[in-house]
């Protein structure tokens, strides 16, 4: 182990030692982990990866911890589902769903970032972990933190889906429901993080935490047979996942795991919170914050930390962005469920609905290899589709009653 060289400011290039810090003292730019890629290239081969257990830790040399992982030992390596029925419906040739609805243990891609964040928090010697969350992160930090024996402070907007709040409470954290939107929770947490010596996974541990998202990209490449897709559609909240998937492809090329990389990255947001897609459509790289109003609460970040870098990824890769209304999100959730048997949370509806628009408008080539990143499970946001599904048939417990209903069903 030990391929991490230090931290470096993405903006001004100043270097820092490995510490629980996240911004450059000079220009406030984000700090990013620097690796010894030459060293990694010597040891991390396809064979080495294939010989390891099917978890995100099979790419451990590319992850920023020094010792053995201690959190999320079963996280990652979710299925890449060949979605032929959905592809047929949309007139596509090769469509895949990266299905993070089944990530262990809390059914969203956040288990990837938290696995790294809490392993790192332990290396730093913290005994309290915390986060500012739109729901999935709350769920994940509550669970991984419980398993790791950490004291937990979980900050969420009080208006989150009931299912997500209950899912987090089950693990017995200190859940702080803030009377405000996510951006307000985030600002508060930045100030709390200033004052208390806790491992805030997405604040002072963020440079390490965010690296966990790369594992989704590594897995896509490995599962496609060591090639990058032609197009990847990624839901954007802070924009971090999208920038890290892009980074993962570049790293795999740099260390020789793949020879070629020609991928366009596409951003998906809800129309009611689309600061990144708006900037992409307007061709600017200044992100204007918005006040979110969408059923896709996990993506409701009006002031996205990585918004600027997300626009750069779109430019660099030649991709684009689209946004989806609440109705389009619900219809897309149902379409994915009916065609592929995958029940995604609202963010998944955003991804599919936006992808459909990108395909219809010609930004994504119908003949190409397309991957949709479906990042969370529908059971977490089931409130969103209540009243929009088929209704159950109510019958009496006898054959006559059933057969009367069956006639009605058959006649439709």
């Amino acid at each position, binding site marked *: 182990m030990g391929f991490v060289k230090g931290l470096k400011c993405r903006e001004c290039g100043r270097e820092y030692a490995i510490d629980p810090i996240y911004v450059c003292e000079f220009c406030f730019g984000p700090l990013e982990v620097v690796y010894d890629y030459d060293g990694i290239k010597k040891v991390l081969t396809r064979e080495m990866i294939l010989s390891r257990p099917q978890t995100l830790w099979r790419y451990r040399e590319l992850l920023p911890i020094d010792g053995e992982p201690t959190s999320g030992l079963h996280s990652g390596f979710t299925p890449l589902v060949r979605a032929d029925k959905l592809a047929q419906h949309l007139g596509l040739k090769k469509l895949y769903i990266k299905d993070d609805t089944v990530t262990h243990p809390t059914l969203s891609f956040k288990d990837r970032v938290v696995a790294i964040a809490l392993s790192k928090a332990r290396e730093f010697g913290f005994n309290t972990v915390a986060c500012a969350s739109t729901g999935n992160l709350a769920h994940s930090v509550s669970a991984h933190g419980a398993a790791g024996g950490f004291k937990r402070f979980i900050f969420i907007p009080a208006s989150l889906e009931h299912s997500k709040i209950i899912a987090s409470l089950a693990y017995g954290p200190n859940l702080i429901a803030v009377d405000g939107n996510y951006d307000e929770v985030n600002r508060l947490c930045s100030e709390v993080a200033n004052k208390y010596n806790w491992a805030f996974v997405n*604040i002072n541990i963020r440079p390490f935490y965010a690296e966990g998202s790369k594992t989704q990209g590594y897995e896509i490449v490995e599962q496609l047979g060591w090639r990058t897709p032609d197009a990847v559609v990624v839901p954007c909240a802070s924009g971090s996942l999208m920038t890290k998937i892009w980074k993962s492809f570049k790293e795999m090329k740099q260390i020789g795991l793949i020879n070629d990389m020609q991928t366009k990255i596409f951003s998906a947001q809800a129309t009611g919170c689309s600061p990144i897609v708006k900037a992409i459509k307007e061709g600017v790289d200044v992100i204007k914050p918005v006040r979110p109003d969408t059923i896709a609460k996990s993506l409701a970040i009006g002031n996205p930390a990585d918004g600027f870098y997300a626009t750069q990824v779109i430019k660099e890769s030649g991709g684009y962005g689209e946004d989806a209304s609440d109705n389009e999100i619900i219809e897309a959730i149902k379409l994915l469920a009916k065609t592929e048997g995958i029940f995604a949370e609202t963010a998944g509806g955003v991804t599919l609905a936006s992808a459909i628009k990108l395909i219809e408008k010609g930004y994504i080539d119908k003949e190409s290899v397309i991957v949709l990143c479906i990042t969370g499970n529908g059971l977490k946001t089931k409130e969103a589709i209540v009243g929009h599904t088929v209704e159950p048939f109510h019958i009496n417990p006898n054959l006559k009653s059933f057969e009367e209903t069956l006639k009605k069903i058959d006649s439709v």
Partner: protein
Amino acid sequence: MTVKVRIPVPLQRLTKGKEEVDGEPGTIISLVNSLDKKYPGLAERISEGGKLRRFVNVYVNEEDVRFMNNEETEVKDGDEISIVPAIAGGG
């Protein structure tokens, strides 16, 4: 009465460890420039060419100045200002 300004950790070295300092009413950018006289180097960290830096968020009484008048937002006696690094959060 003055304007209270909360200072983030990366800048507290410049304010000799103080988490909160007093500022003068006026626009955000004039406030930043006047703080720089007492705490040299502060303005350079927060702003560039009279504009707030890309990765700095400033809030007046918990409201993001980008929803108001950016660096030209007026602050008055009794207002509370927070300077917060923009790179935080996500999901």
